């Protein structure tokens, strides 16, 4: 299974970045082999709609699940549309540990309705 995690550094042992849309990096992991690769988040400097652009990046990489500290309402809507499962990293100390927690079924999965609230688009 292919999982993406938002990270603060381009490493699998990096802390999880608490932001989805404006997280610094994405680490992509194949859980069969535990091979991973890091990418800078292309949406990090977007003037608006960063969550949507980041979700498109996740969708392009054909990840089935994504782990982050939190997901904004538009990112939530976009990832739902893309059919990507969203998981909260919770207390996981690193991306590697978050993946282990996910595989052990210990991470909270976000459900159908997104959090309310929206930031200004000026």
């Amino acid at each position: 299974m292919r999982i993406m995690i938002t990270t603060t550094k381009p490493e699998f042992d990096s802390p999880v970045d608490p932001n989805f849309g404006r997280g610094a990096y994405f680490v992509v992991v194949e859980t069969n082999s535990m091979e991973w690769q890091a990418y800078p988040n292309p949406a990090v400097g977007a003037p608006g709609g960063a969550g949507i652009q980041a979700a498109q990046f996740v969708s392009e990489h054909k990840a089935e699940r994504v782990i982050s500290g939190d997901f904004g309402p538009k990112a939530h809507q976009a990832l739902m549309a893309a059919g990507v499962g969203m998981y909260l990293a919770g207390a996981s100390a690193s991306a590697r540990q978050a993946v282990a927690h996910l595989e052990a079924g210990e991470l909270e999965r976000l459900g159908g309705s997104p959090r309310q609230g929206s930031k200004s688009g000026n």
Partner: protein
Amino acid sequence: MRIAVASGKGGTGKTTVATSLALCLAANGGSALSPAGPPLLLDCDVEAPNAHLFLRPSWEAVWPVGIPVPQIDPAGCTACGRCAEVCAFNALAILGSGVQVFPELCHGCGSCTLACPEGVITEVVRPIGVLRRGTAQQGIDFGHGELSIGEPMAVPVIRELKRQVNARPGQVVILDAPPGTSCPVVEAVRGSDFLLLVTEPTPFGLHDLRLAVEVGHALGLPMGAVINRDGIGDDSVIRFCENEGIPVLMRIPFERAIARDSALGRTLLETHPEYAPRFRELAGDILRQVEGAR
């Protein structure tokens, strides 16, 4: 002549000045100050319009205003991603096997429609607010916009207000701008002949006045200042205006009676008619500056 009233800082007295200036011009309709009769006042603070609370217009029309957003025919869409690529605001994204539209991020520029190689994008108008038009006391023509709750973009409503509520030939237009110095303010004041900046003599007032003056310079507008709540704070605003060559055209003192009457929803000119000559002077000073700049 188009006079924009702006401030930078909110709550300095833009609407106090704009409404009383409108009443003054109405009272002097037909004179050199306002040759085409009572003015048109446009309340451009579409996120929190309030000039109508003071001038109490009777509304003659209300109509929706919106922006064109893309609608995609999924039958012909190949999910090639051109629309998402050209969108500067991430209002479209390729997610899974199709395009998802996020209308609240769309600025209505039309780039996606032009870029779509399959021609499957049509534009539908998404309402984001309303415009209203009416007549207020002393024959003042009145218009304002109201952005719907939850909508993030004020600019299209301001743009359509200015485009759709028109002045008669020669009629003076007063534009009551929103607070701040970002896009909605620029949209409200652009195209004006004069920028009247209402400020207060405090460090906060000065900080935001500096930003507002930068906007005025960037737009090449002649400017003048009104100092409200005169008597509080310090003289740094006055010194700033002197250094910038911005004339201080009026001062309104910090008085409990003025605040009280304003809180009752009444204009300064109604409750303090002794200000009538000072507003006439203000209008005259603005007219002279505009004519001098031409």
